[in-house]
Each structure stands twice: as structure tokens, then as C-alpha cells.
């Protein structure tokens, strides 16, 4: 009875609301949102690095500890790690076809992004608070 082996759900019905995966657009939207944030934040980051480059330890610490600079760096780190995590997940999902390796890679990707974010945030806060 192979002629009856089709879904009676319409394509519109399948994607209406949450779609077949029950999710899907958050990553697309979050990638655009963080991309918009990253443009000014990356420009600020480059300006900060260029102005701090070549300074000695004490000067660099004072510069990074300035509230405005520390806040801009923290925002860039936050927006950056979210953006890079989603981006790398897309790359993994495109190229890693074995289900087990894919799950491991997607997990490792999240661990890396969180570790980078936590380490950089901790460092900036420690410098800024002068501890």
C-alpha cells in the first residue's frame, strides 16, 4: 500500500508556529542581533587595542581598568562569544555528519565559548576592580 505513504500535513501546517523542529528562528535572530552589536563593539575593541598596544604592564592595567573601556570590552566579549558559538555550530552541523561526533562537537563548542567568555570577563573585572 505504498501509494498511501505520504504525510497529509501541508507544508504550511508543518512550519506554522514553531515548525517541525519546534524551534529554529532564535539562532538566526540571535546571530543577526549579535552581529549588529558586534559592529560598533569590534570597532571600539580595535581602537582600544591600538591605543593600549606597546604600553607596559601598569599602563595597560590602568587603561583596561577604565570603566568605559572595561564595559566596552565586557560587552564585546558577551556579544562575541554568543555570535561565535552559533556560527561554529552552523559549521559543525554542515560538516560533521556522524550523529555522535556532531553532538560531542556541538557540546565542546559551547564549552569553549563559555570558557572564553568566563575567563575574559573574570580578567577584565579583576583588572578593573584593581584586585
Amino acid at each position, binding site marked *: 500500500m*505504498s501509494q498511501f505513504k505520504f504525510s497529509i500535513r501541508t507544508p504550511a501546517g508543518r512550519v506554522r508556529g514553531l515548525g517541525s523542529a519546534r524551534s529554529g528562528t532564535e539562532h538566526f535572530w540571535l546571530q543577526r542581533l549579535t552581529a549588529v552589536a558586534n*559592529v560598533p563593539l569590534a570597532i571600539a575593541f580595535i581602537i582600544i*587595542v591600538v591605543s593600549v598596544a*606597546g604600553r607596559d604592564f601598569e599602563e595597560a592595567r590602568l587603561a583596561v581598568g577604565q570603566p568605559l573601556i572595561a564595559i566596552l570590552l565586557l560587552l564585546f566579549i558577551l556579544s*562575541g562569544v554568543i555570535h561565535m558559538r552559533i556560527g561554529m555550530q552552523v559549521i559543525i552541523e554542515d560538516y560533521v555528519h556522524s550523529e555522535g561526533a556532531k553532538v560531542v562537537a556541538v557540546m565542546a563548542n559551547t564549552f569553549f565559548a563559555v570558557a*572564553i567568555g568566563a575567563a575574559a570577563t573574570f*580578567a*577584565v573585572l579583576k583588572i578593573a576592580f584593581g584586585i
Partner: protein
Amino acid sequence: MAEAKAPTSQPAHSRPLSPHLQIYRLTWTMVMSGMHRATGGALYIGTLLLVIWLVALATGPRAFDRVQWFMGSWLGYLILFGYTWALLHHMMGGLRHFMWDFGKGFEPKERLMLAKGSLVASAALTLLVWVVGLSLS
């Protein structure tokens, strides 16, 4: 409209597959798409540079001097120069994507101009950053 599933009697591997990259003639937009992904991947690894530098600065003068020594070496300069270009190129690619998200810039001439324009812009901006950076320090 009902959606038919693939007949179960036929094995899955006999279904036609879409041809891969090497089948197509190389185009500017295709190369730029690959470069956007490649620079994104490079920046992913490159965040380690920022973290190492910040953690060293938070740790103390000795750790910071060691990192500064490496960043100031020719290899460090090469990596930082590459990172700068990757960041700016990815940013230019992102701006192109914003335009496309609004449905603009899809015409053949526009696509070509955007591809070449973002290459020129990212190279020019990278040089600008380094000229300013080196003249300040």
C-alpha cells in the same frame, strides 16, 4: 498540498545528490561566502589571543611581559595582522549580509561590486589600523 515521502522499496543511497563545489565554475560570491566562513572560524580561534592577553594582564607583570614578548615577535605580528584582517573582512561580509537581509544588492552587478568592494575595504581598513597602530606605539 500533500507531501510524498520517498518510496521505501528503493535504497536511500540511489537517490540523486546535489553536486558539490568542484562541479561549479568558481564565482566571486562563492569565494566570498567561503571566506566569510573561514574568517569566522579563524576569529573563533583568535579569541584565544584576547583571552590570553587579558588573563596575563590580570595575572601579573611577568605573565604579561611574556605575552607581550610573543605578540611583539614577528610571528606575533603576523598572527595579529591576520586577526585584524579576519575581523575586518568578517565585518565587511556581515554588512553585506545585512544588506541582503533587507532584500537589497542581489543583482549580478551589485553582488560582484559588493564582493570586490568588501575585499578592498577590509584590506584598506587593515592597513589603516596598522599604520595608525604602529605610528602611535
